[in-house]
């Protein structure tokens, strides 16, 4: 098939769309669904700018981070996905978002969305994650502005947040 009709559940909303077989998830999110909160940078799963969370029963916290540029949208039928735009609840920021602001972990902001999604997955896996684990798990998300210092500080600060969603 060159096209496929799929249903994606993104940030709690249902989207039934027809996608081209060769389009990646990041392409569909940004261009078909106008979800520009997911950024596109390297397209090769190396920089993490397009990190989103996908529900997975096996994953700690029930969801796992993936690079949206590395999966075909057509193969994501039925998947439940969370992007940066889905974190806020009633205008209240997710603790990790708030920690990024408070700790000064945002400079140019281009990596920030993906970095926040990765940070959430780190804390959902282990709310008590220490520095070694945080830094190791942050790999796959590249920041050129911060040297990662305040990003790690932000993750530690948000670490007191529980895994309850």
């Amino acid at each position: 098939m060159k096209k496929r009709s799929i249903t994606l559940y993104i940030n709690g909303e249902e989207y039934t769309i027809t996608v081209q077989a060769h389009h990646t998830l990041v392409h569909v999110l940004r261009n078909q669904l106008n979800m520009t909160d997911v950024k596109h940078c390297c397209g090769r799963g190396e920089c993490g700018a397009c990190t989103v969370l996908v529900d997975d029963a096996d994953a700690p916290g029930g969801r796992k981070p993936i690079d949206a540029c590395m999966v075909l949208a057509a193969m994501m039928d039925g998947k439940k996905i969370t992007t940066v735009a889905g974190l806020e609840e009633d205008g209240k920021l997710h603790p990790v978002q708030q920690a990024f602001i408070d700790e000064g972990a945002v400079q140019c902001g281009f990596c920030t969305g993906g970095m926040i999604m990765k940070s959430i997955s780190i804390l959902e896996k282990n709310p008590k994650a220490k520095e070694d684990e945080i830094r190791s798990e942050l790999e796959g998300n590249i920041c050129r502005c911060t040297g990662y210092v305040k990003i790690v500080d932000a993750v530690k600060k948000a670490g007191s947040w529980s895994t309850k969603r």
Partner: protein
Amino acid sequence: MAEYSVVGHRIPKLDAREKVTGRGMYTGDLRMEGLLYGKIVRCWEYAHAKVKKIDFSEARKVPGVVKCLGPKDVTQRSYNTTIMKLLVPEAFSDVFGEIADLYVFNGHVKHQGDAVCGIIAKSEEAAERAAEKVKITYEPLPVVMTAAESKRKDAPQFTALKPGNLAANFPEAFFPGGAYGHNAPDGKTAAQHMKEADLVIEETFYCPRQKQVQMENHTYIARYDDRGRLTCWTSTQMPKPVQNLIAELFELPLTRVRVVQAPVGGAFGCRLGMIGEPHACALAMAVPGRPVKVEFLREEDWVASESRASGHLKVKAGFKKDGTPVAIDAHYEVLKGGYYTHGSGPPFCTAAFMYGMYKWQAMAMRADIWFNNMVPYGAYQGYGNPENTFAVEQIVDRACNELGLDPVEWRRKWHKGIGDDTWLMGVKYASCGLDDCIDKATRAIQWNKKKKEYAKMKGRKRRGLGIGVMQHTSGAWPMLLEYTNLVMRLNEDCTVEMMVSVSDLGTGGHTAVCQMAAETLGWPMDDVHLKCCDSDCNGFDIGAHASRTIYCVGRTVTQGAEKLKQELIARAARNLQVKPGDLAWGEDKEIYCTWDPVKRINARQIAKESIYSFDDPATGKTIGIPGQIVVTSDDFVKHCSPPFSASCAEVEVDIETGDVKVLSFYNAHDIGKAIHPPSVEGQLEGGSQKGFGYVLTEDIYYDKNGLCLNNDFTDYKMLGASDMPQEMGAILVESAPDPVGPFGAKSCGESALMGPIGSVANAIYDAIGVQITEAPITPERVLAAIKQNGGVKK
């Protein structure tokens, strides 16, 4: 130290919230009615070639293609990507030899990635598919990669404007003997004066072609509208100068060119000038009325936007037995890349910062800059200073080692300070906090304790400590124009519209200028709105470069705020019928007469009545003083206040594999006054990651045909979160506030890159007793150096 109510406080950055919610819109996120997609077709196959034929016939058949454009279909004017010629007098530019050797579409391909033609299509995909189908016939030309190849008599010529391929050097007209520097007190040149030295060290350093690697891909939207106005959305660092360059390139008056500066997803010097603006605009002019978006691929970044300068820096330095720096004589052979762009700018600064650091009795540095088939170099944080610190900091440590001197004490003794010349001869330092920086950095890393501990290590892991000091600049005066124009308008409700074209590259510049405005006014931050990023409503400002935003734009902001306050005082004086000198500011915008406090008026009333100025029907008198308060502030900065810093690094070298790990790192920076401390720390921390990259992992590699081997994250290696040292400190030293900088502030935007370079290289030297003079200091180079020296020496 004064206690401020807003300046110096750790408030959230103004743009932080929209960036954490993902609602911040970069150029690539903008959606517009009728948007078309432009694709720049580049030469990927060759680093050097002539374009013989461009065949669009197959490309045109791709559904969705709107137009295919060759070199003759766009402006025929040549240009230079940089704004440099705008920042120096014309005669100066001529003497320095700046040329405009670039075209929107080039028939003489001078590096892989050079732009050859363009496609406009209805979708990004159609544009990409069509681009693949363009058939270009090339005539390959011999590839020139090294300076030796470039200077040969029979070398292919890059441009008729520079016969012999010497892109630039230091012109004799300004630099006697082609060297930047100064003679000894008795008139001897550095080379001659070297004879006075007891110890002479001569070494050649390889300085790598580092890439900025900002995370946002270069993206532009341009539209030539029904009024004949050309608008370009871009994340350039220099919106107003770029507006000038676009106007010149497309022969339009400034009133018909609008540059909208989109949020910048990182720049680091890469966007200091134009990259894809000419192409996006050229494509837009071909489809009037329709916006055209051009979005670079990540793999284009390394081949189609400028890098750091690279080449071989040969340094000869002489010292007396007691460590007195006698003379330094250097020659930098630089690889320009395919186009002129910044010319001798960065190498000149290598010389300049070499001059500004230590009290050499004589100094001379020459540079020869050769065209070659690499990506052209441009601006990158540090702008020539990294090369200087990589070489000189190591030479100092080697001299100290051979003379039995302490490298920390040597630097304390011989660094320049207040009253000495800065990087530009004749301009003196007005402040210097370096001694305090050295104290704080060495103390933080426990220098004495660890030095003792690591002096006699055995085993396969060896640790070492290194220090690196640096000085940089705050603004580019007197070398370049420094000018910012600002307008402050008082709203009816006594809040302020501040209109100035200030660039924030993620650096926190927007937040800091608002802090400075609010502090000077004595009003809350919320009362100041910054209107920037639009050439339609902003006066001239250079943009973000030479670490000028706080120092230069900050001065204009504080001066504007003072003017606004003065105008309010003047009006209050008229209203209260007293002299302006009789008035003082009270709480909450109140203005009162000091000798009769009953006489008072609130600034809010003045603001309201400045607009709502009615003739009172009862008295026939005019209410208030009419005329909205609008002040202009102009600042042509005539000072430069370089910041200093001292960095200490602790490394561990695995002498069996050559792997180097940075265990801890402290950078004490002479900031004068940190307007927004988290942003200053952020610059120091982020700059460190790039500094470590320069000295340990980063370089652009080419094969023998000039084709790039690592234009991707797979093989252009940067330190990640787990490579960075866990123990890292950005120490803000405010003990030497600057008399000129706003609130005593000096810059930090570029400085942080240099500290890691000198200190890590010296730490490696300390750990293994062998100095490695080629950066990046990879494990391969470490092992080879140990082998060549017959083992680890301690």
